[in-house]
């Protein structure tokens, strides 16, 4: 177990180096922040001094080595636009994103898992197809479209819910639905297929031989086994949520890291963008590791080596 964790951590470090390198060069391909920051009538001298002040002068490789050197010391640079350390900017926004992600997962599981079970129990008939339609719609509807649609219906037309910004519980409803919608489909399809497989098992037959009620057979004996593959995909799902948050938070003007990512890209705020991507990667890697460790507890047959 210890060896496994150390091994995974080392893998994570290698991955982070790659991520950092890619985001550094990819970001710089998009252009120059100075063009966006200076007024149109700025003199060439202003430009040069600005570039120098931002540390964007000198050859690219030298900039890269400075970035790596600082990053190794835990310094991911200052945000160009916000004039505060990029790490600080990230962590000040993170709680706002973490405030919606758990609800989205809960919503996705609360709807997706029962839908999957119902679809499996009614394989091939109307209920199965209805659940399948919900799943396809969930996957096929992009977040920006669903978000705007929800705002149009519930904020503009009906006036029931606020259209954006953080606030009381009513502010959470639409962003949480938008973010969770495509995961509903993921959970549903996964649970359906693994339920169908598990329901054929001999131990299900034995549970019935014992005289247990159908409810216990399905929701205890079958579902517990069917959820094992779902758990493996949890890490992937959380990754999806963190990227999905970029669109959702932008649509709903939600001050989380998703919106911060969007802003960093738009303003070519390189240090901030690098910091966000690296910190998000660390977040996703730790969640994946956590899920794998959890996996060993849920499925007693698994021993991590």
């Amino acid at each position, binding site marked *: 177990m210890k060896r496994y964790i150390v091994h995974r951590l080392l893998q994570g470090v290698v991955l982070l180096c790659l991520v950092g390198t890619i985001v550094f060069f990819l970001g710089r391909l998009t252009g120059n922040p100075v063009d966006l920051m200076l007024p149109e009538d700025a003199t060439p001298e202003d430009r040069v001094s600005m570039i120098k002040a931002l540390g964007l002068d000198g050859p690219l490789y030298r900039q890269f080595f400075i970035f790596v050197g600082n990053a190794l010391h835990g310094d991911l640079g200052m945000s160009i636009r916000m004039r505060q350390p990029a790490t600080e900017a990230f962590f000040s926004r993170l709680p706002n994103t973490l405030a919606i992600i758990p609800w989205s997962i809960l919503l996705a599981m609360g709807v997706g898992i029962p839908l999957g079970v119902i679809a499996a129990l009614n394989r091939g008939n109307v209920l199965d197809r209805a659940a399948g339609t919900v799943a396809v719609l969930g996957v096929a509807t992009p977040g920006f479209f669903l978000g705007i649609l929800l705002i149009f219906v519930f904020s503009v037309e009906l006036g029931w819910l606020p259209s954006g910004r953080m606030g009381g519980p009513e502010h959470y409803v639409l962003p949480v639905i938008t973010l969770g919608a495509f995961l509903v489909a993921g959970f549903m399809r996964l649970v359906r297929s693994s339920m169908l497989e598990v329901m054929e098992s001999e*131990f299900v037959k034995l549970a019935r031989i*014992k*005289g*247990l009620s159908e409810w216990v057979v399905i929701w205890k004996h079958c579902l517990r086994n069917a959820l094992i593959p779902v758990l493996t995909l949890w890490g992937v799902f959380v990754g999806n949520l963190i990227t999905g948050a970029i669109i959702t938070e932008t649509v709903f003007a939600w001050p989380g890291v998703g919106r911060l990512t969007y802003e960093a890209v738009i303003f070519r705020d390189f240090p901030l963008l690098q910091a966000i991507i690296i910190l998000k990667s660390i977040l996703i890697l730790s969640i994946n590791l956590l899920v794998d460790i959890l996996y060993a507890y*849920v499925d007693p047959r698994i021993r991590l080596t």
Partner: protein
Amino acid sequence: MTELDSEPVLEVRDLHTHFFLRRGVVKAVDGVSFSLHKGEVLGLVGESGCGKSMTALSVMRLLPKGSARTVQGRVLLHGEDILTRSPREMREIRGSQISMILQDPQTSLNPVFTVGEQLREAIFHRTHGRNKDVMREAIEALRRVDIAAPEQRIGQFPHQMSGGMKQRVVGAIVMSGQPGVLIADEPTTALDVTIQLQYLKLLQRLQRETGMAILFITHDFGVVARMCDRVAVMYAGRIVECGTVEQVFENPSHPYTRALIASVPKMTGPIERLYTIEGQPPSLMDLPVGCRFAPRCPHAEQRCHDIYPPAFAVETGHDAHCWMLEAE
């Protein structure tokens, strides 16, 4: 030994179970009748795919959902037809009056629950007793099936046990309700040869202690000789011969039974080429109208192909479905 004159605890009459597939109807069980008496072990023998397991699942009413259906017949448990019972009543019957051991112990226990939980569940379902009493009963049930240190084993998961031990746990679970009838569907087929005998002895001891009746499904005549009082030979969805083990072994009267016994390797005498039955069993989707064995039978006459033979008595308690017996 047996009390043949007593009322049967389980009586199956003219049972038909068919699979309704897109390609056609598969007649897996096509007119099976037998009776099982208190304290008796009845062997049900036949080759793979002849309908033995489907007969068992029809009796338990645990046929695979969707395609399989029992279309005709009666299953009388203590004189009452359980085919007409509601699913709820059937759940009360399963486990407490009739129970079943499955073939493969590797897959018949749920991998994510401890064996204690799987036992507890079965016991609690019937008694609704206090947790402490239920756990004590669970430990007792494990001890009855010869599991050493049951107090420790109860907290273990199935994958931490050997195949033989798992099959004993399955035995403990299905017999925890003291059912009067136990169906054992090839319970030793998946076990090591060395473990097989041990398991059979255990079953025999439990059977003697509780006086339950066992329907023992197997394809192994050696197991039949060791375990059973009577034996029914099944071929292509029907029972072709039935009698006590001595009667059937000493005087096999259906050509299929004779061929089966002849194809068991002998441990004594000169070494000869092992006897094999010519041909293939018929497709259960397209059964012949007459005797199902006629196409492979060395003694077949025209009427064998035309009319299915009724049961002819060979001696008391021993009969077979073969036209050759009519003359006698």
